[in-house]
């Protein structure tokens, strides 16, 4: 029951849509941190137990020495967003990575400050 997407399916060959999910050992993002496509992440400092991580997770930690969004990491490593979320969820749970949720405009007053900042920022471009 552990794995609907069994590792055997890796033999489907290059380009198979199943392959990326082998990295996540068949898991989908369910019980981990809720990451959005534009959650911003950064690698934490400190020792990493490299042997316990997937190569893709090491690549993620390597890439995220500065803040990047989940979508940027997915694009740069050419891994689907859904898979990156699972790999990162693990890293965050283990303290190897920090994440910040996207800004949502809910509080009208805070929202106005942010809107003005965005407007000023675009006008400066």
């Amino acid at each position, binding site marked *: 029951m552990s794995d609907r997407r069994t590792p055997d399916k890796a033999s489907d060959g290059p380009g198979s*849509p199943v392959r*990326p999910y082998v990295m996540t050992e068949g898991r989908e993002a369910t019980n981990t941190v809720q990451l*959005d*496509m*534009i*959650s*911003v*992440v*950064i690698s*934490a*400092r*400190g020792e990493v137990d490299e042997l316990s991580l997937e190569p893709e997770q090491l690549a993620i930690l390597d890439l995220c020495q500065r*803040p990047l*969004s989940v*979508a*940027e990491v*997915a*694009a*740069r490593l*050419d891994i*689907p*967003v*859904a898979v990156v979320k699972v790999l990162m969820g693990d890293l965050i749970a283990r303290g190897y990575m*920090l*994440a*910040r*949720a*996207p*800004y*949502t*405009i809910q509080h*009208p007053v805070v*929202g*106005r400050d*942010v*809107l*003005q*900042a*965005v*407007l*000023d*920022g*675009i*006008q400066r*471009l």
Partner: protein
Amino acid sequence: MASNDSDRGPTLLPAALKVLIAGGFGAGKTTMVGSISEITPLSTEEVMTEASLGVDDLSGVENKTTTTVALDFGRITISPELVLYLFGTPGQERFWFMWNELAAGALGAVVLADTRRLETCFPSVDFFERRGIPFVVAVNCFDGAAVYQPEEVRDALSLDPQIPVLLCDARVRESCKEVLITLIQHLQSRAASTV
């Protein structure tokens, strides 16, 4: 004792915002993202599996088709605390199930209208209207395309009078800036009218 991560706390991470760039296939979405993004637009390839319908299945083998959907996006750093992402939405209607995640939390949207095929932006307008996501309509003026006045486009799309409609050239950075500024000002006026 402070941990090694104390200078990398989440509060030092910028928060991200997103704006969607929608419109029919070929309306200039990716062009607009590229014109204003500070990075070369990135693309994520999302693998979609969908059950295929209407296929004779005599073998009992699952009939699934897989499709790759490319999402193009760019980034504008507003300040050390704020980053704005611009996502071009997939143009093909059958990928709309992706739109809910894309649309969730979006600040607003730009609907790019192609006057050669105005009807191709109807579904985008409808999508944002039904979800209450604020948007502006930018009429992309392609070379040689029949040029309509914004009010003609407004009538053709049956848009509410308060929704901004403007002409643009998605290839020109200043023009794209003006579109985004119009969107943010539209959001500001909506915010002002709700309190």
